Structure formats: structure tokens, C-alpha cells
């Protein structure tokens, strides 16, 4: 007997005492929790997102489409970045004023190469106001998961209000489970040493979020 059959057999025997349950999945779980906590206008949701991002020590900026390239350029310059990593589908205009050398992410780019790049600029799939979370799903303006991980400085552009939802349930509704996703809430952190929160262990130690709208 294979272990698969053995385990499934054990499960069935273990449940022999349980009365048959005809209730389908849809009826088995009460879903009377909230879809979102409180009602917000789109503008209020953006406010809350900004607040919660800052609370988890992401640096929040706001700008309109016309000024975006200049803001990106300023942030990269302030950081002293010489190279910036670019996902394949990043809108061309976003980096049009930026000084650093553009490094395109290619399948054959080694991790050692990525490790030498100072900054990365990406878009996002959705942002969650209640938790201050950005979700990246590998769409062309976000690129492979590793590019927002290895460089030490991540600039993420959120189109507001259209990419902002209030809650975790609403975010899941918008995502496609087939795509790999990364949920980011503030810069990487650890509390492993006497529970002191230290920003930045392995992921980018600086997370800057641009609310574009």
C-alpha cells in the first residue's frame, strides 16, 4: 500500500464516528464577519492607507502624474543610487527624469547581479488600507518576486484611489490565485532580539511608497 492510500485510509477510519454531514462547504461556515471595518469613501481609504503605511515605517509620498518622474528621480538621488532595477512593463515615463543607470530584469540576470543594484521601482496589484499592505502579483510593472526583494531600497507606486481597497477580504477578491503574490507591510523587520523591532533584515530596509493620483 502506498503512503498516500495509507494516510487517506487512516483519515477515513479516524472520522468513522462523525455523523454524515451533508452540509456543503458554502453552508458550513458562517460568514457574518465584516467585508470591511467601517465605511469609507475612496479618498478616506487612501488616507487610511497612508496612515497605516507610515505606522509600519514605510515612507509615504504623494504626487500627480506630471510630477511623478521628478519625484522618482529625487528619491533615487537622495539615496545616492547608481543603478535602478526595472521590471519589464514599468511605464516608460516613470523613470524618464531619473539619473541612475537602468538595469532591466532578465531571466538570465543572476542574483549576484541583482544584489549589486541599489534600488528597484515597481507598481503594485492592490493596496489594503486597513492593514497598510501592498500586494505585488508579478504583473509586468512589478516583475519577478526577487526584484523587489534583493535590492535594499524599494520604491513602490500605488495608483490611487483605484488600486486601494479597504480590507483583506476585498484584496483577495481582486487577486488571481494562479499568480504568485507577495504581501508587503512595511520594510522587513524582526523582533527576535528581546522583542525590539529592528527594521530590515533580509528584504529592502527602506520602503518608499508613492501614492499616484
Amino acid at each position: 500500500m502506498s503512503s498516500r492510500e495509507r494516510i487517506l485510509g487512516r483519515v477515513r477510519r479516524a472520522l468513522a464516528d462523525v455523523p454524515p454531514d451533508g452540509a456543503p462547504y458554502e453552508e458550513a461556515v458562517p460568514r457574518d464577519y465584516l467585508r470591511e471595518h467601517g465605511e469609507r469613501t475612496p479618498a478616506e481609504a487612501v488616507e487610511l492607507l497612508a496612515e497605516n503605511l507610515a505606522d509600519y515605517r514605510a515612507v509615504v509620498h504623494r504626487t500627480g502624474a506630471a510630477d511623478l518622474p521628478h519625484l522618482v528621480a529625487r528619491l533615487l538621488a537622495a539615496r545616492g543610487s547608481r543603478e535602478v532595477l526595472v521590471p519589464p512593463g514599468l511605464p516608460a515615463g516613470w523613470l524618464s527624469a531619473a539619473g541612475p543607470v537602468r538595469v532591466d530584469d532578465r531571466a538570465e540576470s543572476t542574483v549576484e547581479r541583482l544584489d549589486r543594484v541599489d534600488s528597484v521601482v515597481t507598481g503594485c496589484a492592490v493596496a489594503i488600507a486597513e492593514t497598510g499592505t501592498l500586494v505585488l502579483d508579478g504583473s509586468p510593472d512589478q516583475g519577478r518576486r526577487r526584484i523587489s526583494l534583493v535590492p535594499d531600497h524599494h520604491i513602490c507606486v500605488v495608483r490611487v484611489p483605484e488600486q486601494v481597497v479597504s480590507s483583506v477580504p476585498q484584496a483577495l477578491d481582486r487577486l488571481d490565485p494562479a499568480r504568485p503574490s507577495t504581501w508587503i507591510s512595511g520594510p522587513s523587520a524582526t523582533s527576535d532580539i528581546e522583542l525590539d523591532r529592528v527594521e530590515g533584515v533580509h528584504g529592502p530596509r527602506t520602503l518608499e511608497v508613492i501614492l499616484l493620483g
Partner: protein
Amino acid sequence: MSGTYLGMPAFPRAARDAVNDRTLRGNLRHATHTIRAKRARAVAEVSDWAALREAGKRIKDHTLRHLDRYLVRLEESVTAAGGTVHWAADAEEANRIVTRLVKETGESEVVKVKSMATQEIGLNEALEAEGIRAYETDLAELIVQLGKDRPSHILVPAIHRNRAEIRDIFRTEMGAWGRPAPEGLTDTPAELAEAARLHLREKFLRAKVGISGANFMVAETGTLVVVESEGNGRMCLTLPETLISVVGIEKVVPAWRDLEVFLQTLPRSSTAERMNPYTSMWTGTTGEDGPRAFHLVLLDNGRTDTLADRVGRQALRCIRCSACLNVCPVYERAGGHAYGSVYPGPIGAILSPQLRGTASAIDASLPYASSLCGACYEVCPVAIDIPEVLVHLRERVVQGGPAVREGNRVVLRPAKGHAAERAAMRAAGWAFTHPRALRAGQRLASRTRRLHPRTLPGPGRAWTGTRDLPVLPPEPFRDWWERTRGGKDETR
């Protein structure tokens, strides 16, 4: 479970040693009290906590009740997405499968993200025996590994080490494992974290094989979810060419939308955050993004035996948030190591004896490692009635009775002369003679007890079978202990 912790003294003796270790007690007290207060604030932020808790419990119960169906579904989904599914009946088989998969890649080292399942099966030791080095990459796990130590807390495994000890471990041990600690390393947390970043980055960049667990597996879509803070999880899940995830069969949930419950309750219960810094979700393999090969090893190792127990099966709902550890007066004083298992605290006291059986002295004494104050039940985000299971397991130890071990029905013999009970009660003395904090907590729990129904209403009734929930004592255990001096003077 593997023999990683064999030879551990039984809980009472180990606990007594820990209580006498003042550094350990100081660290634990600071840590548990800090997280406890933060958690209460994080939970208070969501007005529908009770509804989320109930939904989480029902999702898990529904899944466990149809576990065979959901596991088969999961296997189909993962396979369709390009992954390969393996089934492991016990620790030995899981270790064998993982070792073989690593060897097939031709590699002799792997990077690991913290996973309780791989600790449970003793994977690192099994790999080591086959000449494969496993590098732990969580900061706390790194501290534990470099310190040749054992984890003592589910979420903060190095909770028993303070910063000066950590600096000393880094200074003396890092060099032997790779990049040494920087010159003049001090004991500020930021510098220690930086030392770990540099030490581990070298390993991430060259790793070809990553090993992980998972917090959730979605049957409908084949998606796995890893919840973390530091980014080492993301490194292990995305940079290597081969990813091997070892996951207990109870981690499956039916559908994508079920994540909306647990991604709200888990971070708030565990690290007391609205959301943890990083959560990774992946479904099989994805072209150029991430590992080219993905293997999922589904682990039984005593879980189906636990499922066979009408009362004890609720322990399989656990999402390993560790909230129950942080509120437990016994854990706070005894520390994680006293539990002699990778699962410490209240959840360990009910899970380890079920996964491993109660044949050893440590496992027979674990159900006594509690004052039944009920604080663990109050905070549990999937409403596991830990005191109920503890009482049930005590009966099992003292009276014996039918049980399932490795899939076979057995009849357990009673522990001789209630030796375990007597030993445990003696040892309990240390925990209940002084602290005032304990009293307040227990009285509160005891007062809320009258709100707890004796049988579960609605569909829960069928699930708990015909068994009544145990009647909770009107007087908290601690008060009884004080009044009667541990039962010596029961008439007082």
C-alpha cells in the same frame, strides 16, 4: 515524531530547573508580557473578532471532517500547477523523501525558513547524517542553531536568549558556519540584525535548494501561503531552483476565500500586528519567476491518530499563532524547553502527547503542565478548548483506554499508581505558591466560564459528539491550591 528530544526529563523536573534559571525567567517574562499587551490592542481594533474566530474554527472543523476529500483536491491542484506531491506517513518517511529530493539536485546544502513541521521530524539531523547541511535563516533560528540550542517559543524561538548572549554566540560561532561576525560587534539589536543579514545573504545567493513549511494550503487552487517578518522566507521561496515544502496535512483549507479569515486573525494573534511584514503565496511553479521545481511533502506523523480522538482532534485546528503561550502562567515560569517538544506551551501540552502518544514520561506528564485557568482558550483564534483536551488527556493517562497509534486501534494501560499525576502535582507547587498576577488572570477566566456552554450549539454539537464539555470548577485552580495547600488540606 522524531527522537530529537528523547531523553528529555519529564515536565516537572525540567520545569523546576527552568524556574531556578533567573535569566531565562526574566527574558520570558519580559517577552510574554510585551506580546500579550500588544495582542490585546491589535485584536481590539477589529470589531468582528468573535465572528472571525468562529468562522476560522468552522472552516477548520469542516476541512478536518472532509480531510480526505480536501487532500485529494489539493494534490490535483498542486499537480496541475506544475508541482509534485509526496505523502509521508511518518517522520522517517518524510526525511527520506526530502533527502532523496535534495540528493537528486546534486547539492549538499539547503537554506531553510522556519518550519515547525521540519523541526518536528528532525529534518536537519536527518540531512546532516546524509552529508547535507541545512542552514536555518530566521534570525531566531540562526541564534538557536549557532548556539547549538533548542527553540523555546513557536514564534520567537530564541526568546530565552538576551542580547548579550546573542552577541557572544555570533562572535564565537558565525565564522565556523560562513561569514564571521563583523569586528567589534556590539549587542544593539540593529547591529546584531545587520550581522545576521550579511552572514545569511551569502547563503541565500548561492543556495540551489530551499526548504519551507507553510501556514496554509488552499485545496481549490493549490496555493501555499507562508507568513513571515524578516524576508528570509521570501529568499528561500524565490531564489533557489528547487523548493521543497514539508507541511502537516491539517494545514489545508478548502478555498481561496478562507484566507480572508486567517490572514486577519493570524498576524494579530501572533505578532500582534495588523499585518506581518511579508506574506508569500505561490501556486505550483511560474516560469522564470521562482523555483523551477516545486515539491510538496504532505506529512501525517500522528495527525490522523489525533484526528481519531473525538475530543483531542480539535487540536488540529491550530494555526500556530502562539497566543496561548504568551498568556500561559505555567509557560511563563517554566519556559519552552520544559515541554520537551518543538510545540511548547498549552498547545504543546495537548499536541505532543497526541502526536507521539503518552508512552514516555515527558508525554505522560504534559497534560498536567497547566493550571486549567482557561486563558489559552480565551485567546485562541480558532477557539481550541485546550483545558477540555487537557482534562481528557489526563483521564487517558490515569485511566488508560482506547486510542489510535500509527493508524492502529490500541488500548492504553493506565499509568501505574497515577505516578504521573502525583509527580506533576508536586511539581505544580512551584508555579502556584506566589505570584499575584496568576490569580487575577485565573479569576477572570473562571468568571467568564459560566458563559461557556456545556455542549456546543448548532452543528458544533454533532462534531463534539455526545460528549459534554467538562464542567469548569467554580473556584480557580490557583485559589484551590492556596486554600488547600495543594490538596494536602482538602477540608479547608
